[in-house]
């Protein structure tokens, strides 16, 4: 079985760190990285995290975090 993680695309490093905290508090493994080039509008950050993507997106959304895109990656 291939384990997957998700990149949550967030432009702001501040918001990305806030998202990282939220996901970690929800019991997920989460870490902020520089956007490897996913964001079509240029530089930013991604939070690479475990957990079910839709649930995590709902969680982030409920905390006011704007995620501009996601990408699944192999763990």
């Amino acid at each position, binding site marked *: 079985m291939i384990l997957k993680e998700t990149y949550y695309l967030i*432009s702001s490093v*501040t*918001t990305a*760190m806030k998202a990282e905290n939220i996901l970690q508090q929800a019991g997920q493994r989460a870490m902020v990285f*520089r956007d490897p080039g996913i964001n079509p509008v240029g*530089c930013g950050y991604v939070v690479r995290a475990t957990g079910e993507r839709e649930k995590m997106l709902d969680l982030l959304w409920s905390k006011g975090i704007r995620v501009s895109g996601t990408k699944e990656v192999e763990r």
Partner: protein
Amino acid sequence: MLYFDNAATTFPKPPEVLRAVNGSFRNFGANPGRSGYPMSMDTAREVYRARSAAGEFFGAPPENVIFTRNCTESLNLVILSMLKEGGHCVISDLEHNSVLRPVYALSRGGNVSFDCAEVPLSEPEAAVESYRNLIRPDTKLVVATGASNVFGTLLPVKKIAALCAEYGIPFLLDAAQVAGSEEISLADGYNFIAAPGHKGLLGPMGTGLLILKGDVLPDPLMYGGTGSQSLMAGQPDELPERYESGTLNVPGILGLGAGVNWVKRTGRDTIRKREMEIAEYLYDALSEMERIDLFAPGPAPGKSTPVLSFAIEGKTGEETSALLMRQGIASRGGFHCAALAHRKMGTDDRGTCRLSVGPMNRLSEAESAVRKIYAIIKSL
């Protein structure tokens, strides 16, 4: 030196602040929010911690904390944007020039007008009605200082915030003299809180904060690189990047974060109580001396900050301050960038000498200062 100029900037800073600033050069010397290598990320994380500490302190989420150069920049950012289309503004008659001057400059353009609400020093609560009476249908912004930087009078800012909410007018609090000693929180209804980082919050000079409620977003004061959305010509809307173009003052911000944590750990009540005891001692001692003119009611908990303004009989504020300086007492003489306050109190002809107590002052320093001032009077 006996330092009693804490309303200008607090001195000395706690050792934690010095360590944070020094450590930033050794450990967090890469540009935050621009790259992904470890030192850049570590620096961004430290900035985030400082932002979160400040946010928690003022009841704001971290992204609603904007780092600026000083309180004046924070005030200008809001005032220049909120009145850019014209309209009316109400300020108090105790405002610092950092509020008066941008409002006055806009009024010279012709489509902005402003009025000054009277704050009776003996009954500051009456200022709420003064503000109410000046609100007009075209009032776009209300500004009030938390306390006079010259006379220490606390304004009823929570009640003014409630008044503004009643009329649906954004309220900007100038927290220059109260951040760090009084309870200031977005929960009390402020739309914007402007604060210096280097006074009551004990950070380094060159740091300031703008705390946004987030329901009204002013235009940025500066546009430019934010390390995000670099292919777009437009400034990002996201907070805090919308307002933080260019490289951040990382040493200052990390020092400010350490200062905020020091205040949290020490407690605002403890700081306020300690400062007021010293200020009351100074006021009482000066009251008993001959040839001393005191210009406002004495410091009192809940009514004022630990600031007192005086002058030696027949001397200007600057002359008085110079006499104190020769005895090793650091004070501030003159007009304190507060034309309105001096005109109101009739001290615009000679100014005053201001003694302002900070969290690091000790009663023994005040006792020493009183002895020296007494000696100055006797020698004249």
